[in-house]
């Protein structure tokens, strides 16, 4: 933002130049607080309005908020599951004390589901943040710089993109023997996930690198780092948000799957929905005995609803791309060429379908 601070014309110049309208400079300059408010409006409020206008997004925000609440406050409200606190293999919805039933060792299944939420959130956050940061740095730099930098970075990206994720993670976990830290596992599960996003961001940057305002910054000698962070990356935010959420979902799928197979490292207090599925299957034979099916279904339900919240959120973030939707929400534009929002707005019917 430095360059706008430089005075463009002085008062003297304005007076001497005899009245050509073209050379008059606006007297009103945005104060910095106004500028911040404008930026905030553009980057946060408008996307938030667009997101909230969509029934999918509203469900998504509620579901994710619920899991966030469970992850942060759940362990404070519910006591930790312990061996023999209830009868063995009590079915779901039989007692108020154990709403989702108990395991074959008498542990409260609901408490287990809740206690697994916090490490899951930690994994998801670590993996998604890692993916987004690496992808943004690599993708925007490659796309903007071009030339040798681009070739080198893209070759690296292509290599990472083609190496299959899950087998790579399995190999790394087996050989490296990392600890059971959820943050570390989250990053490991995303070890090559940044490549796809980096490629996509690069192609977006290609369309921006020759835009007039970017060219202007370049000619004025603004350093590359600043051009990227001020002129280019804000334009990519919706896309980055969408992929943040998608990677979050991938981390859930990966960690549950690999805990289910018993491949991810664990210690005595590791809690994970995949681990629950694993013990349900191996300890109580939940796949072939009806008595333990509830033990299998509770974590599965948790995985699916959480992932669904993320999917819906990514779906509605996709709308941020659509300039027609965006324009409809900009304050200055009237929406006369767009049909009014369809009746899906209140979303009661689809919500019912999905809960079923």
């Amino acid at each position, binding site marked *: 933002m430095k360059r706008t601070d430089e005075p463009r014309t002085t008062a003297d110049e304005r007076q001497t130049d005899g009245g050509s309208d073209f050379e008059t400079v606006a007297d009103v300059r945005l104060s910095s607080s106004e500028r911040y408010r404008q930026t905030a409006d553009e980057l946060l409020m408008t996307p938030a309005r667009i997101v909230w206008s969509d029934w999918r997004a509203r469900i998504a925000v509620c579901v994710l908020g619920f899991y966030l609440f469970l992850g942060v406050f759940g362990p404070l409200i519910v006591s930790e599951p312990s061996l023999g606190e209830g009868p063995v293999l009590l079915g779901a919805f039989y007692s108020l004390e154990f709403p989702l039933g108990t395991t074959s060792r008498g542990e409260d299944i609901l408490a287990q589901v809740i206690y697994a939420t916090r490490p899951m959130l930690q994994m998801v956050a670590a993996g998604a943040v890692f993916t987004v940061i690496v992808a943004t740095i690599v993708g925007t730099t490659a796309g*903007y*710089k*071009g*030339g*040798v*930098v*681009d070739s080198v970075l893209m*070759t690296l990206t*292509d*290599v990472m993109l*083609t*190496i*299959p*994720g*899950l*087998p*790579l993670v*399995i*190999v*790394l976990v*087996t*050989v*490296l*023997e990392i600890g059971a830290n959820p943050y570390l596992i989250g990053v490991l599960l995303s070890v090559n996930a940044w490549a796809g996003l980096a490629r996509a961001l690069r192609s977006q940057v*290609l369309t921006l*690198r020759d835009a007039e305002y970017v060219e202007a910054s*370049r000619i004025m000698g603004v350093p*590359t780092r600043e051009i990227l962070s001020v002129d280019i990356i804000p334009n990519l935010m919706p896309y980055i948000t969408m992929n943040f959420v998608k990677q979050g*979902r991938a981390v859930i*799928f990966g960690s*549950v*799957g*690999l805990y*289910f*197979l*018993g*491949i991810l490292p664990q210690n005595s207090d590791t809690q994970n929905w995949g681990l629950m599925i694993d013990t349900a*299957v191996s300890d109580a034979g*939940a*796949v*072939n005995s*009806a008595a333990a*099916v509830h033990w*299998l279904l509770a974590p599965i339900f948790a*995985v*699916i609803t959480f*992932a*669904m919240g*993320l*999917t*819906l959120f990514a779906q509605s973030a*996709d709308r941020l791309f659509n300039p*027609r939707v965006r324009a409809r929400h900009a304050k200055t534009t009237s929406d006369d060429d767009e049909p009014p929002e*369809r*009746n*899906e707005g209140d979303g009661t*019917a*689809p919500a019912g*379908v*999905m809960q079923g």
Partner: protein
Amino acid sequence: MHYILRRLVQAAITVLSTITLSFVLIRMMPGSPVDRLRAQLLERNSGLSSAQIQYRIEQQTNIVPDEPLYVQYFDYMTSILTGDFGRSIVKSNQPVADILANAIPWTIFLMSSALFLGFVVGISLGAFMAYREGSLFDISSTSVSLTLNSTPDYIVGLLLLTFVAYQLGLFPTGGRYASGVDPGLSLEFFASVLYHGALPILSMAIVAFGGWALDMRGNSIRILGEDYLHVARLRGLPERRIALRYVARNAILPMYTGLMIAMGAMLNGSVILESIYAYPGLGFRIIEAVNNRDYPVLMGCFIVITCAIVIGILIADLTYSRIDPRAKGGDSREAY
């Protein structure tokens, strides 16, 4: 031609990096698998002399631990590139290449069937959803697709195994074909293979179909708003022609490369599914190798899977510009 050459070089770099990575992991990581291999060999056959153990390590990993590093690397590289992946530690010294050759066709069978099934059903439904955008049909199928898209395939697999295979007893719970059937070109064998593969294939296809439907729906809706469609309507072209030539064709094209990438994703999925259904394909072998700390087999599977995906994406890239003339290979841009 220049573009094709560049893509080939890139594919080669990917394969070489994967092999290098596997060499680094086996040879140089702290708590090196080579050391653990030595301990494992000592434990299992206490009578071996140290020279014999050295020889076994060399046989199994293609690495001679005493040689200088660059020689080890060169040996490892050349032996893998000539198809010698070493020998299994656990399965009485069976060559890894044999284990792989026995597993790959089954995984490819599962994946390609699932991919085909999911793709065809998905795009048909997606196109129909886009055409009826906003209708009850669209909203309910979108909801179903979203739900499927938010479910990992191994969970679908687990549920199908629980309810369809065990509780209803409609399908077998594991294996590649019935034990009484001889593998060969008989109808009985094919039927048995299909019967045993049905649930794993279905698990992958059900999940993938939701994603395809949503993609196709999105692409079609975008195209339905394009100017050339209005023009086509104004010209009075028949609706059928517009639907197939203008909408479907342009909506499917961007998904073509996705198809090959989906193959990679399915390989990921099949790793867990194969172990749920005890289906001895590549994924099953990977998990088995991890549990036994059978490093040569593990690395062999890893390298083979990577090569399969590299080839898939290469084919997609090289054919894409033939199918979609808008995609041009090669770019000459100014560097800043």
